[in-house]
Structure formats: structure tokens, C-alpha cells
């Protein structure tokens, strides 16, 4: 054997070693980073003798772009409710009919038939939450159950408010604050929204995601935020309080779907059913710190989440919650224009 054949053989052996052996029991999950409880995954692996891989994405758009191209090797993804209809419409999902699965009886009635997936033909609830206003009560003692904290900042908080830079969330809140309807394309309302945002911006200190750190340290005294993040902030600093704005607040949820191109369909279905079990749903919540939609999971929930004001919506605020939708493309375009102007 001369050197050329040796080298070729070595090269081929090297490449062959990197080909993943397609074992019998595999499940490839594509999910947001830092969102999947290793303990629950371990339990699933042991129960069904399936090897799970988890791969991360950092935005709905990245996930959708990759799955659109196909050939990714993923079986499961976890898109937000605003995106689920797009995935369905583009034919990227497999109709696994979770509504007929054994554990579906545990899904809370208000989550059993959502607008974004009527009859739960494709998706299983993973986590849900709200978007509200977080205030450090050491800095501000007044009423904080309003988007006014962000859009019409009280003097004590001027220059200390942060806004989480999610375009759809901010526009939604601003439309609610001026008394409009979600996804409105009424120019008069949008003019008000634009003027409101432009006038409000000088009172903000930042537009950042990193709120857990900065609120905990006291760099920010108030921020718009997701409830799970607010819960972590309160655990770091007891003066921090989460509020449900009375003008109306957004609800979001992330949902487990099986991809049409999945190679491990049966394992993916097992997983969908597995996470609708109360104990497993509580395990997931304990890790990602958001509520789940499974009845009976509360008795397994960690003590600091059971009655947490960030997780349990007070009865009087409940009717003000509204599912955020993806608006029509031409409406989104108007919002993008307002958003771009705000970024300047």
C-alpha cells in the first residue's frame, strides 16, 4: 500500500466516523436555548429507551427559515403561537392529533382548543405566559398596573425604564394603551401609537433583553417583560413587583409540534403525550420558570411557583389577557415602519 491509498483510506475512515449511526431509539428536538429540563428529558430517555438530542435556536425566524429549507434531521420544534399558523399553512407540520392522545385529558380547558391550532391537531402546549410591567417598588410606590409606566412614565421612574425590544409586544401594548384593537390598521390609531412611542422614548434608559441582571442589580427600576423573567427578578430582589396592565396585556405560548420531515415520528408522538402528564409538565416548568397548561401539575410545582403572582393571573385581571396574533403582512409592514422610526 503506497502513501496515496493510505491517505485516501484514512480520510474516508475519518469521514465515516462522523456519520451519525441512526440508532433505533432517537429523537431530535429543536428548541429555544436554555428551555428544556434535563431531568425531564432523562426521565423520557429512561422510560422509552430513546436517545434525545437537543439543538438550540434563538428566534422564531431562525427556526422557521431552517425548517423551510428541509433536510435538517429534526423531529420536533417549539414555535410560538404567533408562528404556529404559518408552520401549518406552509405544510411543515405532521398532523399528529394530540387532541386524541391519552394524556390530552390533562390539558386545561382554556388551552384545549386555541385559535392558532383549532382542536389541537398539531401542537401540544409547552409553556405559556404573559407580558406585563415590572416595577421596583422601592423606586415607585404608585399604581403600576398600566402601560403608562412605559409610555407615560411617572417622574420617579424617568430615565430608569427599560423596554424589551420585541416589536410585536411593544406595538401591541401601545395600541392597547391608546384604546385600539390588536392588529389594527386604522391610520388614526397608528398615528397616536407612533406619537406616543416617540414621546416616550426619551424617558427610557435602554431597550434590552438582559432584564434579570439589570433589574436585580437596580440599574433598571422598571421594565416591560415576560412573567417568567419577572419571577426570577423577584427572587433576586423582593421589592420587585409584576403587574398586569389594565388596558390589556398579551398572552403568549410555545407549542411542541412534529415536523413533516421527521424520521422518528413514533418517538415524537410519545414525547408529545409524555409532556402532557402533570408531573412531567411541572418538571418542565420548574426548569424554565413559566406556567404550563396542564391541570393537576400544581401539586408537583416547586414551592416558589405554586402561588407566584407572576404565574397565577389574579381573577380580576384575567379578562384583560389577550392572545397575541400575527397580523396581516401589510399591517406588519406599517408596524415595522413605526418600529424603525423608534430605533433611530
Amino acid at each position, binding site marked *: 500500500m503506497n502513501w496515496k491509498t493510505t491517505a485516501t483510506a484514512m480520510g474516508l475512515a475519518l469521514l465515516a466516523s462522523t456519520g451519525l449511526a441512526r440508532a433505533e431509539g432517537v429523537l431530535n428536538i429543536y428548541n429555544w436555548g436554555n428551555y428544556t429540563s434535563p431531568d425531564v428529558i432523562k426521565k423520557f430517555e429512561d422510560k422509552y429507551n430513546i436517545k434525545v438530542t437537543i*439543538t438550540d435556536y434563538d428566534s422564531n425566524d431562525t427556526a422557521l427559515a431552517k425548517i423551510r429549507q*428541509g433536510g435538517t434531521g429534526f423531529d420536533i420544534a417549539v414555535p410560538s403561537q404567533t408562528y404556529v399558523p404559518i408552520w401549518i399553512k406552509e405544510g411543515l407540520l405532521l398532523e399528529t392529533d394530540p387532541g386524541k392522545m391519552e394524556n390530552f385529558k390533562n390539558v386545561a380547558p382554556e388551552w384545549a382548543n386555541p385559535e392558532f391550532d383549532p382542536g389541537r391537531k398539531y401542537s401540544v402546549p409547552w409553556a405559556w405566559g404573559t407580558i406585563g410591567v415590572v416595577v421596583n417598588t422601592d423606586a415607585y410606590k404608585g399604581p403600576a398596573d398600566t402601560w403608562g409606566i412605559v409610555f407615560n412614565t411617572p417622574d420617579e421612574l424617568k430615565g430608569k425604564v427599560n423596554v424589551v425590544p420585541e416589536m410585536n409586544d411593544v406595538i401591541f401594548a401601545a395600541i392597547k394603551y391608546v384604546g385600539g384593537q390588536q392588529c389594527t390598521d386604522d391610520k388614526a390609531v397608528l398615528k397616536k401609537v407612533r406619537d406616543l412611542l416617540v414621546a416616550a422614548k426619551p424617558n427610557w434608559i435602554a431597550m434590552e433583553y438582559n432584564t434579570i441582571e439589570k433589574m436585580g442589580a437596580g440599574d433598571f427600576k422598571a421594565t416591560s417583560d415576560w412573567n417568567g423573567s419577572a419571577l426570577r427578578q423577584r427572587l433576586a430582589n423582593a421589592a420587585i413587583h409584576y403587574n398586569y396592565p389594565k388596558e390589556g396585556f398579551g398572552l403568549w405560548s410555545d407549542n411542541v409540534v412534529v415536523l413533516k420531515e421527521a424520521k422518528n415520528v413514533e418517538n415524537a408522538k410519545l414525547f408529545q403525550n409524555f409532556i402532557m402528564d402533570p408531573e412531567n409538565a411541572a418538571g418542565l416548568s420548574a426548569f424554565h420558570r413559566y406556567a404550563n397548561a396542564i391541570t393537576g401539575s400544581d401539586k408537583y410545582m416547586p414551592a416558589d411557583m405554586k402561588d407566584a403572582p407572576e404565574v397565577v393571573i389574579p381573577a380580576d385581571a384575567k379578562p384583560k389577557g389577550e392572545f397575541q396574533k400575527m397580523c396581516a403582512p401589510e399591517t406588519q409592514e406599517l408596524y415595522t415602519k413605526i418600529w424603525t422610526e423608534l430605533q433611530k
Partner: protein
Amino acid sequence: MASNFSIKHQPGFTTIAATCFIVLYLPIIVLVAYAFNAASSTSEWGGFSLRWFQSAYQNTQVIDATLRSFQIGAIAAVLSTIFATMAALATTRTASYPGLTFKYAAINQPLMVPEIVTGVALLIFFSRIKIFTGYSGLGYLIAAHTAFCIPFAYLPIRARLENMDLTLERAAADLYATPWKTFRRITLPLLWPGILAGLMLAFVISLDDVVITEFVKSGGQDTLPTYMLGQIRRGVTPEINAISTAFLLLSVAIVTLFFFVSRKRD
């Protein structure tokens, strides 16, 4: 003034250089310091502790991603260095001819084209192949990393070849050595430091890549940088600092080792 003019001492240069060093190194020093923070914050100091190193070590996702980064990096570095050595020999041991400049440009293409463009192009291209063949293993990532590492390996190797004394090669050829023997006995030993430099550089570049990897990766193929990117949205803990610190120490160790190895050889 002109009498004590020196090219080494010009007004303001010291300040500019010092500022550059501070801007470059201070964030890294802060990052390393907070890796040893007992509190779970990346901005509030809560005493000294090694807990984040421990938690990173026990985090199977981190360990998996790290090993995968090393695996891809090692294979891609070796392959790209082999290709780069061939390319460097072909472009230096020749008289100039029309089209040579074009070849330089082709070899250095990954340096010119924005990473995001390469990433999107590879996503579309590889997806077709994945669907067609049904293979979605690490091969795609290795191929992509090899491709963009080639120019980084090529530059030091080519520089070394251009500064080499050609007399020895001519003497060998004069004494009936075959081209292959000449390469093995003369060129390769002299070229070795350049090849090592190229190999190290390619390895570090591969280890560091985020954009292309994010687009090309399939199921279960997170590398350490893409894993870290996925963490950002949900609040970062000093675990990330601990991982970065370990990574930094490793890079410094590799470069130091290389420095001593190449010094002995010269």
C-alpha cells in the same frame, strides 16, 4: 526637535496603543473575573467560588457541544491545512501566468464574502443534498468549516514558502531526487513551522465560528458557540463566563505551545 526625532517615539502613539490594549483586554479580564463569582449574576460580585466551573462541567449539553467543537475543529483544521499546503505550493513554485491572480482570489474567497451570505447559501445548498441523500451527519459542518479555514491556513504557509531558499530544492533536483522526494526531504521540513501555524490558526477559526454553523447544523449538532448563542435570550449566568474562561485558557495554551515549538525549529 528634529535632532532627537525617533520613529519609535511619536507624540500620542503611546496613549493610542495603551487605549487599544485596554479596550481589547479589559472586557476579557472582567469576564474571567466574574467566572469566579459566587452569586448568579454577571454584574454583581458575591464572593469567590468555583461553582460555575462545576456546573458547566456537570452540564452534559456543554460538554457535548465542547467535544463536538473540538472534533469538527480538529478534522477541519487538518483537511484545510492539507489543501492549503497544496494550494500554496502550486501558487508559489511557478512562474507567473495569466489567471494566477484569479486563483488567489478564489482561494481567499471566504475572507472576502460576508459570512452571513456563505451561511445562507450553504443552508439552501446543503438542504437540497440532505433531502436528496437522507444523510444529515457532521459531514456538512466539516465540509463548511474546511472551506472557510483554507485561506487562514494558506496565508502563513505561503509566506513561509515565499521566503524559502530555493537553492536547496534545486540542489536536490540536480542530484536526481524525484519531485516527491525533494518535497519530503527538503521542502516539508523547512515548511513545517508554517504548516503548524496554519493548522493552529485554522483550528482556532473553526472553534470560533457561529454564523455559518448556525445555518448548517442539523439535529444534535450544537457547537459551543451556537450553544452559547442560544442561552442569550433567557438570561445569562456566570456559567457562560466559566466556559469562556476555560476556552480562553486552552487557546492561550495552544498558542504558547506553538510559540515555543516554532522557536526551537527556527
